[in-house]
């Protein structure tokens, strides 16, 4: 990649250069990098609230019958935990933070196609978040339906479902706008010579994610709108008393919400595909296979939604078709896993924190994915549906998968984003309690599920007690690791050593510009002449 270094360094994007300064400059910025950071900070805040609620739920499960809080509060807790984690954390997740920050840089552009729309997306996100918080304290109080808002319960409960659902609607809007922006950017803003198959894999991941956002999110928007209309005007589409059908609600909800799980995981997989070659110092194994598998996950992933409804009383035909398609969608994930592992083969592996977390991602995601396959098999699903097994599965994929990839990506790009380096020792130290705690907590949950512990249960029967205690202790270890991790990064943003422009020896475009990047990313738009993971110059043969 042609050198784009300035002779006189431009001020970084972190320095205010416009007419506005301070907070105001940030709140009115249209710079994709600053918007990425706005997302990072706001999502972190919600994320910690969600984690806190998770811990309280674990505390509640420390006792069988006598509890700290009422059943109503517990129901509100898991609903709010789910809504925050899904709609405010993992769905916007990597695209909003790292997509915004790095997509233009990775394809050699100065910004996204619609910078002002980009800022608007963030405001929609914040508006949705505020509405979600308001729903806790207004109307009938925090919703108690679970994040799935199943009708008819969500139509009948006295809690403030309407506002919470409206919040999700607004958040969906934010997600769609980001999707539109990314697709247009990738089509229109690539640097000269940046063919489709010269794009880093993160771009492919973001591209396929954006398509899901576009094609699936409107369905949940209309579904949630119908729930609101149903609650206010009783239009009767989901209400069995009026001839409506609660199963239609489930279908529409999952038409979005299953693809949404791929909105969560695809960018995470993209980040992993960036990290592995950099630390193995060789091209990724099977570039095209990984690129196409992203697109096929996006495609086939839209066709499996009813595997969440196997016990709802669907037709036998639908049961068969959806179980079959669920198996098919697991194939592209398998392809990715094998390619990642092969990327390590005959590399020259520079073991660094981002790599550790990337490998942890692969391990935990495999457990999550394999349990997903178990759930997709009909005969097993009848047993584990709506038990803690499911809770274990999705924490493995969402937190072990997306969450760990977010960690890995943060560790990988932190020096670039902030121009500072963190203490690697402290990060290694945080990994141990996190890894052990994680598996105690969520593997424990899967055992509970096999034993027959239903999810969303305020009290549990005595035979489940031991495992619940183990899981709760696991959650403490996990949080210990989390605290060390974030304390390290926070410390580094203020007091960290200055980072080099290319601390890991990466070869994608972001490593050719200063850390932190200047406002305009590149002085001269680079001309691309080869694939993204070209380490040839490091070879001294």
């Amino acid at each position, binding site marked *: 990649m042609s050198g784009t270094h300035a002779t006189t360094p431009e001020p970084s994007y972190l320095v205010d250069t416009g007419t506005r300064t301070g907070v105001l400059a940030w709140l009115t910025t249209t710079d994709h990098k600053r918007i990425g950071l706005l997302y990072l900070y706001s999502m972190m805040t919600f994320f910690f609230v969600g984690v806190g609620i998770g811990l309280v739920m674990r505390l509640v499960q420390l006792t*069988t019958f006598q509890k700290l809080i009422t059943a109503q509060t517990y*129901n509100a807790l898991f609903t709010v935990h789910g809504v925050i984690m899904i709609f405010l954390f993992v769905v916007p997740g990597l695209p909003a933070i790292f997509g915004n920050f790095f997509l233009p840089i990775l394809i050699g552009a100065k910004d996204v196609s619609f910078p002002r729309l980009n800022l608007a997306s963030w405001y929609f996100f914040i508006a949705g978040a505020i509405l979600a918080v308001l729903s806790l304290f207004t109307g009938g109080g925090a919703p*108690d339906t*679970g994040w799935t808002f199943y009708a*008819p*319960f969500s139509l*009948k*409960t006295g809690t403030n479902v309407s506002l919470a659902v409206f919040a999700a609607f607004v958040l969906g809007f934010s997600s769609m706008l980001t999707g539109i922006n990314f697709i247009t950017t990738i089509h229109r803003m690539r640097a000269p010579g940046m063919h489709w198959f010269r794009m880093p894999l993160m771009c492919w991941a973001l591209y396929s994610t954006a398509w899901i956002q576009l094609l699936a999110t409107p369905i949940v928007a209309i579904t949630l709108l119908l729930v609101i209309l149903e609650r206010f005007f009783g239009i009767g589409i989901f209400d069995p*008393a009026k001839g409506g*059908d609660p*199963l239609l609600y489930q279908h529409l909800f999952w038409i979005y919400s299953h693809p949404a799980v791929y909105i969560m995981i695809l960018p995470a997989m993209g980040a992993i595909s960036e990290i592995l070659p950099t630390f193995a110092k*060789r*091209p990724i*194994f*099977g570039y095209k*296979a990984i690129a196409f598998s992203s697109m096929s996950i996006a495609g086939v992933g839209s066709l499996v939604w009813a595997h969440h409804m196997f*016990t709802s*009383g669907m037709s*036998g035909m639908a*049961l068969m078709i959806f*179980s*079959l398609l*669920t*198996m098919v969608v697991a*194939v592209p994930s*398998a*392809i990715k896993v*094998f*390619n990642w*592992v092969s990327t*390590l*083969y*005959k*590399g*020259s*592996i*520079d*073991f660094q924190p981002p790599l550790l977390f990337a*490998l942890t991602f*692969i*391990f935990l995601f*495999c457990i999550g994915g*394999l*349990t997903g*396959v*178990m759930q*997709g*098999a009909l*005969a*097993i699903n*009848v*047993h584990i549906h709506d038990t803690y097994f499911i809770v274990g599965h999705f924490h493995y994929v969402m937190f072990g998968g997306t969450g760990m990839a977010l960690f890995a990506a943060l560790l990988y790009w932190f020096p670039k984003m902030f121009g500072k380096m963190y203490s690697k020792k402290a990060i290694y130290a945080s990994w141990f309690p996190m890894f052990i705690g994680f598996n105690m907590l969520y593997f424990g949950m899967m055992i509970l599920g096999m*034993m*027959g512990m*239903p999810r969303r*249960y305020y009290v549990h029967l*005595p*035979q489940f007690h031991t495992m619940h205690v183990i899981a709760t202790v696991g959650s403490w270890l996990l949080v210990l690791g989390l605290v060390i991790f974030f304390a390290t990064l926070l410390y580094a943003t203020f007091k960290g050593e200055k980072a080099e422009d290319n601390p890991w020896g990466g070869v994608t475009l972001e490593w050719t510009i200063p850390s932190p990047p200047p406002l305009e990313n590149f002085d001269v738009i680079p001309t691309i002449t080869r694939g993204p993971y070209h*380490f040839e110059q490091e*070879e001294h043969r």
Partner: protein
Amino acid sequence: MDWMNQAALSAQKSDAVFFYVFGLSVVFLIFITVLMIYFVVRYSKKRNPVASQIEGHVGLEILWTTIPLVLFLSIFYYGWTNYEYMRQAPRDAMAIKVTARQWSWSFEYPNGKQTKVLFAPLGKPMRLDVRSADMIHGFFVPSFRLKIDAVPARTNTTWFQATKPGSYDIECTVICGVDHSLMLSKVVVVPEAEFKAWYFGGEDAPEPGKTLRAAEAHPDLANQPMGLAVLTAKGCLACHSVDGKPKVGPTLKAIYGREAQVLVAGNLHTITVDDAYLRRSITDPSAQVVRGYPPAMPKTALTAQELDEVVRYIKTLD
């Protein structure tokens, strides 16, 4: 452990598939993990300072597309065929109407008998026609690996054939309101003769499986006041709270000695809640109906001793 308990044919069908997938998963997980660790150690910067610039390998791509695909399809097929078996009830199965409501289960047998606990003869197929009176609920018996949702305005059907006598938990798996987690019951599997004695016996035929259920009485219930234990066991707490919260029925907290308005044969009377009133409310609920509540309370058979305990317990609630 309860989950190792395969108490019905469906459990055997489900577990067979589970162990197949579990075995495959363990193999693949170990394979991938060991390979990762091996590569990281073997090709570390120290051991292998120069990386080979390998771009990929078409043959391998095809290999690891087809192998997982074939395995996944086998998982689908095995899971589906075993499930088809679990779904289709044999024709001679006894049909039970299962009704879910917030927050209790009730079972109606072909001859009209109604129970709160499901009694089942050992080794006989039982078909369950599951309905709901209000929200969606989920009918789940872990020991049978059996689950089906109760959806309002439709009937979902499933079946089982118990293979082991015993008393097994029924749990509700779909969030249906505050007391979702208390929406519990039992399937009591007894030898066929014992079942028949009850089923064909008169109104007052003793319920089967008494000894079974006493033996595994709830440990937490053991430490509770007897009266509360009775309230729990008889399902009173589905409609009454003991902490002042109104439910379907009025709370039982602090009612003793209070003045109350009741409807007796349609006329409003003001009475004071005393022992006699409580006893009558319980033994003949429709005689006096508390104002503002529906006459929804079912008649529940309590022994004289149980009645005494309940009344004594209600008096202590203030």
